[in-house]
């Protein structure tokens, strides 16, 4: 516990300082709240709207959780397939890159035309954006397996499956987490953006509504919540990473 605290106080202090500066600046320069609201104002607004905001948050979180889960699964699965079948990799790789380059905003109408108005197209978009960094990082992780360990496995007649599950997968874990952390950072924001493409509820809806009625403090409430969720998400996977690579830290460090 004590260690935990020692890890927390530094960013907490920095955050406080940052908020303090921000508050001071907005007051000192008399910046209008609709240009940049002061943190205190955002806080006040947050408390005020919280009850009506909660269902929006829950809706977005649900969307993101589902989408991200699929994204992780799809990312790792794709990387696995591409790794196991190099010919498929050569064939598919350009399509993967392509899939990441059709701007969501452009895809949106097509998605809606193809998949209708439900949660599906949104989940798909979240999964699609999450999937790519995970797939690339995982693929790179698979490619960097220790040569000597690989030789051992091959000499012992390990099947491809064994090589994969006993060597390449565990070896790629840090890389996989690297990809997941990158993707996790974006996932909440992607969820919010995805909601712009036709939703009835969610942080994104709340944000557009607030923006179009020029309630800047509320827009910032939405941003703050997005950020908090993202941090929580990032933290979750950081913790999972620590758990999965514990062997690396066991024993006395030199």
């Amino acid at each position, binding site marked *: 516990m004590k260690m935990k605290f020692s890890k927390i106080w530094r960013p907490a202090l920095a955050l406080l300082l940052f908020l303090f500066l921000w508050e001071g600046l907005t007051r000192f320069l008399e910046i209008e709240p609709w240009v940049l609201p002061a943190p205190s104002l955002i806080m006040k607004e947050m408390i005020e709207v919280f009850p009506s905001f909660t269902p929006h948050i829950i809706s977005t979180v649900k969307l993101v959780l589902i989408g991200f889960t699929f994204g992780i699964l799809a990312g790792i699965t794709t990387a696995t397939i591409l790794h196991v079948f190099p010919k498929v990799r050569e064939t598919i790789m350009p399509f993967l890159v392509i899939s990441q380059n059709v701007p969501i905003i452009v895809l949106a109408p097509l998605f809606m035309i193809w998949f209708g108005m439900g949660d599906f197209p949104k989940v798909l978009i979240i999964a699609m954006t999450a999937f790519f960094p995970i797939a690339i990082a995982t693929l790179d992780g698979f490619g960097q397996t220790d040569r*000597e*360990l690989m*030789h*051992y*496995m*091959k*000499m*012992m*007649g*390990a099947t491809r499956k*064994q090589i994969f599950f*006993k*060597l390449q997968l*565990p*070896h790629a*874990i840090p890389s996989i987490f690297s990809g997941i952390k990158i993707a996790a950072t974006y996932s909440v924001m992607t969820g919010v953006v995805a909601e712009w493409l036709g939703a009835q509820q969610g942080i994104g809806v709340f944000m557009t509504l607030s923006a179009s009625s020029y309630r800047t403090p509320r827009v910032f409430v939405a941003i703050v919540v997005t950020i908090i969720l993202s941090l929580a998400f990032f933290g979750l996977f950081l913790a999972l990473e620590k758990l999965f*690579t514990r*062997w*690396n830290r*066991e*024993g*006395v460090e030199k």
Partner: protein
Amino acid sequence: MSLVIEELSKSFGDRLILSNLSFTLKRGEFVSIIGPSGSGKSTLFHVIGGLLVPEEGHITLNGTKITGERGHMSYMPQQPSLFPWRTVLQNATLGSELSGAPNEELAKQLLQKANLGDMLKAYPHQLSGGMKQRVAFIRALLSPQSIMCLDEPFSALDSFTKKDMQRWLLETWEQYDKSILFITHDIEEALFLSDKIIILSTNPATIKEIVEVPFSRPRSNQLYLSEEFLQWKKKIVENLL
């Protein structure tokens, strides 16, 4: 159960490493391979194990060609090659795991015997060099294949630990009726352990001579001091030059 190597050749790029090697490992035989550093001993293992495909020649196991096939031997590489995310115990059982029948109890016993009883849950980076080698050795012992290829298994061990391991290897060999190919730099070790010693030349590696070791089994430590032993040792040293 006999392994026949016929006219094996292997190059890396333009460099011919193994040239026209032929020999036989009979069932239950213990054959050592000695030769200069860099001559191609480990490469020979890689070819036999199917990791590398020879340009020429065949490998036959019990009459079946297995050139380029993998998984027919249990193998201890020259570098310990332990998996860093597995504990000592998990590393020791890896070889048998691959064949589907890990025996954790047996692994624990063997590790205990190798003075690694305290370290079952330790990770490789917490081990000394010799300890790693012993784990890799036990991993090979526990693999079920009946032919064992050991690449300098005891090079990092002090003389006493080494003696222990040797004794133990002989026990396992006799008890489970295994055939062993054994790379070493230690001529005394080769003489003490094996039925046959294959002496390789270098650049490229050819078979200089195959020495049949005449000592009867079981061999006692007294052997080291006998005149005959020293004679044989001298002979091999001369052969190596």
